[in-house]
């Protein structure tokens, strides 16, 4: 019995927490899609979904967008990885900052900045206009695919780079010794071996695109998408037809779950382990090839980092309504925030700190329980932790709002729900980060401490926690970064007075007030950047080790 305490009890508490705040709302939303307004079982929601053209169209659009963006990301990501892995290009060190750029520049800000460049009042749009060249409409498929590709290609880049690095160079040499030309060797020998990694990352990108809200709503006014429709059904029909919200949420849960299932099945089927071979040497390119490779890589890097610069410039630019007076500088956009909107900054800091604290504590505890104190509850915990991966922020927001708006526990409208929503989205990754060092900590270490007279609980703090620290720090930074940038769940559940930076930016973009949005964006990025910088520079945290 005493063996069950304290770890068994903690497992039970963690399980109860996940059941209450993840399983219950999600199961609730799934069930409600089969119930009509009178509370009877009905397939009405699905009937409407299948018979009203716009729903099916949105589903089809989401899938098409997912496929297109995944394709574009694969082309860009694999190409860039190939260049970086094989060739000695001038600024290859900067390339390794790319994953960071995605962390630091929230997707909403990325969308905003590209609107400022290519949108109706965009820099380039005006420039071309002056020369009488019409710029194609940015809002719609073009803008969606363009911005999402720039946002998500890094996933594929990293996967492909890891695969190319691990690839045994002797295979390639063997191919060449048989008389195949280097390029043909590449296509025939090397690319097939990185396909598993790329495909696996591609499926993840697909789920991210389908679940994306920030870019979808900023640029997709003319293309109905599942995530946007789900959001609108919730916003416009508050008190209206909850069946339709649930049905839309259910469809997107099923779509993402299906793809994730496919991805896991694919990983388990393939022998994903690659022989760790010699890292192939990087060769120097000459002539036009060098220029081409450098140029393309450089372009991708510039396009990835440009949003930060555009927003920074925009935040100091004079504007009147939607019109930006580029070249005329002002501090107005910031003084306005100081005068009227400090609360928004405060909200962001407050919610994100609480969510990070809660999330990291929970992740630390749960990863310890899952790795070191496995019990009958552990596999259930494992599965519950996968659930947040299958739902987009929008769906999480709706399921939380619906799940806790009545009954014994009313949280809808409270700040607690905001914190919870932000924390839950990152939880699976947090647990993965926190447990990264845990597998290397031998059980005898804890037993040694206990045998020396330190009780198990204190042993955890004395012995295990210091060794988990690097993983916990990575979890904390990444959780902070994502919660400060969180929009899709919080925008569904926030109440007046609970606006965060992303929500405020989102509202300003909707009103086409880009300069003011930019000032908020810069503040948002600074808040993200500071801990990342401290973590990497001062604490030497490895953010991308796992």
């Amino acid at each position, binding site marked *: 019995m*005493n*063996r069950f305490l304290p770890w068994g009890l903690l497992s039970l508490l963690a399980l109860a927490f996940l059941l209450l705040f993840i399983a219950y709302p999600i199961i609730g939303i799934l069930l409600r899609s089969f119930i009509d307004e009178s509370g009877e079982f009905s397939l009405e929601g699905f009937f409407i979904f299948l018979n009203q053209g716009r729903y099916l169209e949105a589903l089809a659009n989401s899938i098409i967008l997912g496929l297109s963006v995944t394709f574009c990301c694969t082309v860009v990501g694999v190409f860039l990885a190939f260049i970086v892995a094989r060739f000695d290009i001038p600024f290859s060190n900067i390339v390794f900052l790319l994953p960071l750029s995605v962390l630091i520049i929230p997707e909403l800000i990325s969308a905003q900045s590209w609107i400022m460049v290519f949108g109706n009042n965009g820099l380039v749009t005006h420039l071309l206009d002056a020369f009488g060249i019409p710029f194609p409409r940015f809002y719609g498929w073009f803008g969606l695919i363009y911005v999402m590709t720039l946002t998500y290609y890094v996933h594929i880049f990293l996967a492909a780079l890891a695969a190319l690095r691990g690839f045994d160079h002797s295979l390639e040499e063997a191919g060449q010794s048989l008389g195949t030309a280097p390029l043909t060797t590449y296509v025939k020998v090397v690319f097939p071996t990185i396909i598993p990694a790329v495909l696996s990352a591609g499926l993840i990108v697909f789920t991210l695109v389908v679940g994306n809200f920030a870019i979808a709503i900023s640029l997709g006014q003319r293309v109905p998408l599942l995530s946007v429709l789900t959001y609108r059904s919730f916003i416009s029909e508050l008190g209206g037809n909850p069946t339709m919200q649930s049905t839309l949420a259910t469809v997107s849960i099923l779509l993402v779950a299906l793809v994730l299932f496919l991805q896991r099945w694919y990983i388990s089927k393939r022998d994903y382990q690659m022989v760790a071979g010699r890292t192939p040497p990087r060769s120097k390119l000459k002539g036009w090839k060098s220029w081409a490779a450098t140029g393309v890589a450089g372009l991708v890097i510039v396009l990835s980092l440009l949003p930060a610069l555009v927003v920074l410039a925009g935040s100091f630019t004079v504007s009147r309504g939607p019109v930006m007076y580029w070249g005329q500088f002002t501090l107005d956009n910031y003084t306005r925030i100081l005068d009227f909107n400090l609360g928004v900054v405060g909200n962001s800091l407050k919610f994100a700190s609480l969510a990070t604290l809660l999330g990291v504590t929970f992740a630390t505890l749960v990863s310890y329980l899952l790795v070191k104190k496995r019990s009958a509850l552990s596999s259930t915990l494992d599965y519950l932790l996968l659930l947040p991966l299958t739902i987009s922020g929008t769906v999480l927001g709706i399921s939380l709002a619906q799940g806790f708006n009545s009954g014994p526990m009313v949280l809808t409208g409270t700040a607690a729900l905001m914190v919870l929503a932000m924390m839950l989205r990152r939880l699976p990754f947090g647990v993965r980060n926190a447990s990264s060092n845990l597998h290397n900590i*031998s059980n*005898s*270490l804890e*037993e*040694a*401490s*206990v*045998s*020396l*007279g*330190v*009780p*198990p609980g204190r*042993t955890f703090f004395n*012995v295990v926690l*210091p*060794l988990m620290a690097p993983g916990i720090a990575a979890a904390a930074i990444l959780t902070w970064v994502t919660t400060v940038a969180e929009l899709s769940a919080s925008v569904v559940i926030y109440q007046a007075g609970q606006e965060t930076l992303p929500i405020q930016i989102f509202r300003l973009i909707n009103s086409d007030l880009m300069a003011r949005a930019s000032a908020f964006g810069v503040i948002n990025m600074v808040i993200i950047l500071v801990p990342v910088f401290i973590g990497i520079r001062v604490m030497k945290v490895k953010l991308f080790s796992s």
Partner: protein
Amino acid sequence: MTELSLRHIKKSYGHVEVLKGIDHQVPDGTFFTLLGPSGCGKTTLLRVIAGFVTPSVGSVHFGSEDVTGVPPHRREIGMVFQDYALFPDKSVFDNVAYGLRARRVPKEEIRRSVNEYLERVGLEGFGERLPTALSGGQRQRVALARALVVGPRVLLMDEPLSNLDAALRVQMRDVIRSLQLETKTTTIFVTHDQEEALAMSDTIAVMKDGRIDQCGAPDDVYRNPKTAYVSKFVGSANLLQAKPVERCNDGICRFEVEGSNFAGRIMSEANDGRYLVVARPENLGIRKAAAAPGECELSGVVISTQFQGYRTSYRVKLKSGSEVNVETFGEMDGSPLTRGDEVIVSFQDKCIFVPEASQ
């Protein structure tokens, strides 16, 4: 200081009984070794003593105190692990001081004790280093100091030498044994290495399938194995089937072994009346066959010889087809034996008899 007693300890995992009733007393200050092959339950028994495993049945006593329900951190034990289990982020000094700090010993005393024990294990001046900057042998010394500095009631060691290379292992035996003698700590030492057990222990308990098969001083266990299993596990032994032919007289019994008459002591009674004769290779005599074998002698042919300096080993194939190993020390009388020589193997009066079936 502390006598350890184990009373009727049983432990089952599901339907598998890993410990099947262990009853034993370890007198205060002795070096007690659990010897047995992998999987026989040594670690489980050690962890029962430490308190990390709760026995299904039975009790553990330190002196007069029943500690069965006492959690490990209150048992005042010291443990040394196979993988050293040093805290990698703490210096050697902090590792050794760990248990003292948990006991809220004053700072000055901690410094004194830690330095004393570091000196005892031959690591004075290593306090500032991290464990990663030490060799395997040095790490195990730190672990030993860490376990002993708190003055444990019982010191528990689970195969502490098996990660070290051969030469270091022999050297560490001395370090451990002499520290144990100096501190007079009751010690339970787990190993699967019979040589280690024989060299270090006051008492050896040979374990088999969750039971203690035999327990005694090293030379007693070696000379007087009570079962065929113990005779084979501790040292090497020649075992031949023996048929009892006469009731015993003064403890000496007569047997027929491969057609010859043998006499010797029965170590434990066989329920089914079937016995094996046990003879250590070094207790056998060997000579060129000149006449028919006499009492306690068998004839055979040398099938291999190995000269190993101070001793020579022979492998002899007996008439029946069984083979025995014989070792001689120093020079042989007469001309040396070579392959194919007909020989007489003499069991002399040192044969002992054990039951054939394990019981």
